[in-house]
């Protein structure tokens, strides 16, 4: 959900406006071809990145539209683009270490997405609320904490509708989903079964109610 300031100056509260529902897409890791289902049901296809890059989506320029991002796990470089089309990256920088897993989200609720990472060997999240630039490094994370077990699948989303994306984990061996509602170490605020072993988890606001819920991708 995106919080929009009301036009009437006398209103001192933020008004929660219904957000556009999220949809799904996928990248072919062999060809680096992206296929995105738009809200009108049409599919947009374009090439972006190199085979082997780790894809994700986010709103890098705060315009309300999610566009592609790539994480090159071999060197920890992030490549972000502000349009859903073929072209070069608008933003690139490095953050994290090789083999880290990128997580895109609005981790401070400011309406703009950034790219944090999960270090699978440690089970630790490194959350950062800014983007880098000009091929430079980004520096230290805003906050880091442990959550889950080594081998869990990380994902991010606004699981309680407060406008801030937090962290979730999917434990493939037993198909359990674990969600945290704040950026701090602690036990899961919500957990439930969903899917089957081998599924790939993600989240989105599928019905536009302002809360991100789970989805899984299965090759069948």
């Amino acid at each position, binding site marked *: 959900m995106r919080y929009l300031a009301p036009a009437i100056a006398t209103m001192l509260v933020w008004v929660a406006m219904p*957000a*556009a529902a*999220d*949809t*799904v*897409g*996928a*990248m*072919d*890791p*062999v060809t680096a071809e*992206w*296929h*995105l*289902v*738009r*809200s*009108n*049901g049409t*599919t*947009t*296809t374009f090439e972006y990145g190199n085979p082997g890059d*780790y*894809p*994700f*989506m*986010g*709103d890098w320029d705060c315009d*309300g*539209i*999610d*566009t*592609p991002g790539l994480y090159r796990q071999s060197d920890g470089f992030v490549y972000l683009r502000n349009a*859903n089309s073929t072209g070069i990256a608008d933003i690139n920088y490095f953050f994290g270490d090789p083999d880290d897993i990128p997580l895109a989200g609005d981790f401070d609720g400011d309406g703009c997405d950034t790219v944090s990472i999960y270090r699978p060997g440690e089970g630790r999240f490194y959350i950062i609320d800014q983007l880098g630039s000009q091929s430079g490094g980004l520096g230290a994370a805003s906050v880091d904490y442990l959550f889950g077990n080594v081998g869990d699948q990380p994902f991010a989303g606004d*699981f309680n509708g407060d406008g801030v994306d937090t962290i979730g984990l999917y434990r493939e061996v037993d*198909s359990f*989903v674990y*969600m945290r509602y704040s950026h701090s170490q602690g036990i899961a605020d*919500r957990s*439930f*079964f*969903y*899917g*089957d072993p081998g599924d*790939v988890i*993600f*989240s*989105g606001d*599928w*019905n536009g*109610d302002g*809360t991100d*819920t*789970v*989805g*899984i*991708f*299965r*090759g*069948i």
Partner: protein
Amino acid sequence: MDRRRFIRTALVGASAVPLSGLLAACAKVVNSDRASVATTPTAPIGTTSLPTTTSWPAEGSEPPTGRATPPLALSAICRDAWGASPSGPGFVGHTIDRLTVHHTAAFLSSNTAAPARLRGHQSYHLSLGWPDLAYHFAVDANGNIYEGRPLEYRGDTGTDYDPAGHFLVVAEGNFNDQQIPDVQVGSVAALLAWASEEFDAPLDTIRGHRDLASTTCPGDNFYSLIADGTLAALAADVATPDATLTIECGSAAEQRVADIEAGVDSSGAGTFFLKNANETGQADDVVELGDPDWIPVSGNFGP
């Protein structure tokens, strides 16, 4: 793209891979995976279906003039390849003049189990004193077609209708509890198209088991496609003169079964199961997109 177009696209995309399947008595569940129901997401019919692996002409376009549509060519995995037991005694001859669809009523959480399920269904039917698997063909969740009972013999049923004259196709799965994959619907439709021509059985004779007997077979989620004419329309779409059905045997067929059991048969697709609440339960929406090895993303991509 609507479901009907997608199913046909999926069928065309799968044409290099034999379509197949076969089953057991609708109301008799064997080897059920019921325990997995709560953890296996499924979604209602009518959800978005978006193929990308196969190109498709623009809406409303027609094949170029003078270019013939190739005949429908299907193949089915032969009985030996999927491990069928020998038939028993008691077959009854008949002449096919109508087309009837069943489900196995056994929840299928992974298509890798499909060949074993089929063997289980046949074993169960033999244990009932029937001469063979009740059905002439079975279709699994990936659209693979399996040879069943010889076509010249009437099927069997534990319910109150006479299967004489019925071409019996069974879809693996319980479609009261799970959605039927588009590729599976596509293969059933193609089989019916072939049988319609082969036996001069009009497509308007297509029925679900529940139209003939007191049963929920073939499940609400499959039956809705029969009741609203979608299945017949799909069959009509893919029907061609000189359609063929090849029964595939030998090492190639055995490898196909091995691939199915290993989960690497090439007719699979990538499927998204989306849930509108963070809790256990069936998916609220299902989207088919791309290939199983693609990497999923999500977001608001704009109008």
